[in-house]
């Protein structure tokens, strides 16, 4: 035992509960909402984005319930239009964009680098407060008239409709700045705070993915900010930019909007891919396959992602040349995405695969993301998109990518790092039950939407032709199954806080640095900077089930020769 501990600088064996951790380092509400600790800010973000997810999810279930019958079921068209707008705005701006970087990224990234915090802790806190301010603006908008524009705020509808569009759009503007601050912070953190010995190619893949994400956050989000301010200027001061009645061009708005919002899809999916790369390797007990290809494909996706926005405008009347160029560039994103999928599969090959809850979510991710990515090729073909554009096919496609991708990976990461964040193990059995509900419910909900979309069911319809009812009813039933799954997740995580088994420092036997300190970590993360090794040296660990941890049995530098 003594020998093992000597090989493990940086953490002491499992301690008693009253041991100091970031959770009891300072008490009271002010010690949380004004904290500069990246872990507490991560928890603040986690609570915030989960609250947003609950609100957006309830809106989704209400939308699906309304669609049970072709006519009015539970709400009129005005309420319905506000409801799907709320669902979109909340899920995109308040949940998916900040979810993984804000909560898991903030908590885990500095620890993966063996650092004590992010580079700019105050900017980090500012980022969360901007998030809260943006959310408050959205709330003000809801109670003072609501918004019925869809989350895309297309002009001239958004500049002429009633309701409080300005408050909602300003909220999205603030959320954009919150996102920029997070991205800026992460980039500087990765450049400046990597420890001795962690070259770029010894950095784990989750940070690589966050780096790619941060590039987009910093370069694309300002364009959204400017666009939203122009929209406010047009609506309040009647400056003619987008509305043809004032001399503007409504298609210009679409170009501006998607110049941000298409890369924003990669803000959502890249961190998700980072989580999957960690989880697949750890639960296959095998070194990640094709490390450099996975790392560079994240950067490639981030860069190509800037050049494809025009595929949202295939039917808008943009030039045929524009359609050609954007279609060709859009297909280029398929290649780095496929590279990741193949490398994940190769990682599983000959592994010793533990089908714990995080791995189940990771496998679901690969499956759902594959479907989402392949159906993306249908809509990248201009002629086929001419038929599919603005139908439920597109709705199904982006839910496979964003829900099947981002949310599934978020759940994988949440279950994976939950013991690290809280010091408690959740119920594996209930975790698998919840996974089953969510996975099955998801297929029932969204696969149905591919079919009805291909048959011509347009999106954002409050009423519909009776021939589509069987699909809508099936889809709604699926959404209830999924909803039940999420309540089980909430239940099992909350239960673990009170009744969960105590987690050891490294309950999954992972080789990244965040596992080399207590669970939950002390407020300064590491008593001394950990020694850097190969982040995927997973052969080096042996389980010690009675302590709910794994311990390193082989030295850290033994794989050094593999990395020139």
């Amino acid at each position, binding site marked *: 035992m003594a020998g093992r501990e000597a090989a493990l600088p940086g953490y002491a064996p499992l301690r008693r509960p009253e041991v100091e951790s970031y959770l009891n380092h300072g008490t009271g509400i002010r010690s949380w909402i004004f904290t500069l600790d990246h872990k507490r800010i991560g928890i603040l973000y986690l609570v915030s984005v989960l609250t947003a997810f609950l609100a957006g999810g309830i809106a989704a279930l209400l939308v699906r319930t309304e669609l049970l019958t072709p006519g009015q079921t539970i709400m009129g*068209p005005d309420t319905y*239009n506000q409801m799907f707008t709320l669902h979109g705005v909340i899920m995109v701006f308040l949940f998916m964009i900040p979810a993984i970087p804000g909560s898991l990224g903030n908590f885990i990234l500095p620890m993966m680098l063996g650092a004590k915090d992010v580079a700019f802790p105050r900017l980090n806190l500012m980022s969360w407060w901007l998030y809260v301010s943006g959310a408050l603006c959205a709330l003000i908008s809801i109670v003072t008239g609501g918004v019925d524009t869809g989350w895309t705020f*297309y002009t*001239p*509808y958004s500049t*002429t409709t*009633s309701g409080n569009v300005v408050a909602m759009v300003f909220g999205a503007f603030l959320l954009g700045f919150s996102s920029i601050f997070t991205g800026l912070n992460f980039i500087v953190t990765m450049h400046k705070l990597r420890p001795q010995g962690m070259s770029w190619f010894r950095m784990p893949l989750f940070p690589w993915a966050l780096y790619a994400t941060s590039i987009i956050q910093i370069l694309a989000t300002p364009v959204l900010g400017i666009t939203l301010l122009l929209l406010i200027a047009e609506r309040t001061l009647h400056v003619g930019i987008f509305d*043809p009645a004032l001399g*503007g061009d*409504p298609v210009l708005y679409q170009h501006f909007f998607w110049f941000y919002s298409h890369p924003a899809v990669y803000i959502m999916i890249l961190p998700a891919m980072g989580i999957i790369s960690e989880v697949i390797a750890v639960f*296959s007990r*095998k*070194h990640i*396959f*094709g*490390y450099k*290809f996975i790392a560079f494909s994240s950067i490639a996706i981030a860069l190509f992602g800037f050049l494809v926005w025009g595929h949202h405008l*295939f*039917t*808008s*009347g943009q030039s*045929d040349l524009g*359609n050609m160029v954007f*279609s*060709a560039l859009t297909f*280029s994103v*398929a290649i780095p995405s*496929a590279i990741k999928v*193949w*490398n994940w*599969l*190769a*990682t*599983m*090959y*000959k*592994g*010793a695969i*533990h*089908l714990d809850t995080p791995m189940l979510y990771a*496998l679901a991710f*690969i499956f759902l993301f*594959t*479907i989402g990515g*392949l159906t993306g*090729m*249908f809509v*990248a*073909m201009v*002629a*086929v998109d*001419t*038929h599919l554009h603005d139908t439920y096919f597109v709705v199904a496609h982006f839910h496979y990518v964003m829900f099947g991708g981002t949310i599934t990976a978020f759940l994988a990461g949440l279950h994976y790092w939950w013991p690290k964040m809280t010091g408690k193990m959740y119920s594996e059995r209930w975790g698998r039950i919840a996974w089953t509900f969510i996975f099955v419910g998801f297929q029932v909900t969204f696969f149905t939407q591919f*079919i009805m979309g*291909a*048959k*011509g069911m347009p999106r*954002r*319809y*409050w009423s519909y032709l009776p021939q589509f009812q069987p699909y809508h009813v099936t889809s709604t039933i699926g959404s209830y199954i999924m909803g039940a799954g999420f309540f089980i997740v909430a239940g099992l995580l909350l239960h673990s806080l009170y009744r969960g088994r105590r987690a050891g420092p490294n309950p999954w036997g992972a080789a990244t640095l965040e596992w080399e300190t207590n669970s939950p970590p002390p407020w300064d993360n590491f008593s001394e900077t950990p020694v850097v090794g190969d982040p995927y040296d997973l052969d080096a660990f042996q389980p010690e089930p009675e302590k709910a941890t794994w311990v390193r049995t082989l030295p850290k530098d033994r794989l050094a020769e593999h990395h020139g």
Partner: protein
Amino acid sequence: MIVLSFWLPERASTMARHVDSAWNFVFWVSAFFAVLITALIVFFALKYRYRPGVREKADPAPHHHLGLEVAWTVPPTLLVVAFFWVGFRDFMDLATPPENSYDVQVTGQKWNWLFTYPGGYVDADLHVPVDTPIRLTLSSQDVIHSFFVPAFRIKRDVVPGRYNKTWFQSPIPGTYQIFCAEYCGKSHSQMLAKVVVHPPGQFERWLADASNFLDKMPPEQAGEKLYQQRGCPQCHSVDGKPGTGPTFRGLFGSTVALATGGAVKVNENYVRESILTPAAKVVAGYEPVMPTFQGRLNDREIDAIIAYLKTLSGGSGGGHP
């Protein structure tokens, strides 16, 4: 073809066949990869499953292999180039109307479609001759709409301030659904119309009959036709139920409260003003959302509509003077 009919709607234009074969191409390639990847996930997860005492450690295996990376990068690249080419080639056909096309102007407005024929006649549905290329010039009176006919596999946004074009040629007489595909507000989902493809020789007769309805019909009946054609029922019912606008049942001759305060008697002048400058005197409880019909309804047509409104106030015993 079972797969096609499971996924795609009926097919009634010359271009639909090309779009469907492009769909088929991408569908089968995608299905192949989806099945392959899913099979690998399941196979690996079962075969290499961790089993205490049996399989506790991964087998030694290399963790990088340039040949493999190239092998799974190059063929997909070639495939997506093929997808791009097929999709773009067919799109150029979709986007290029033949020179000898028959022209119809399409106007989108909240929340109905108007189809204007070369002679100036306006209808709420699109009537066309069979086997003839039809070129549509699309424009909007207000916000963005999108003209979508699933059976023809065509969709084109209808954007205010610019003219977009699309075309089709239908070889099969019948009636096909038109949807609005770009979200445009409250009654977006009711912004529907039909394409009627007439058998040979019948379109010309239909157009001649329809075009001079003002001469042939009594004014009340012509007014009812205009009410139907120009989209009035989207907001104004005739059965007494309030919609986005007040019902026309019993409206003419009554006195209505105005949103700005005060009241007005609904007579010929008020109806005319409300058609030409709808925002001038809005009835209390309604939003000023009606588009103007200035330049789109002439005096004779307005007279006909007034005549129709009078019939809805039931001069026989409705109590109104």
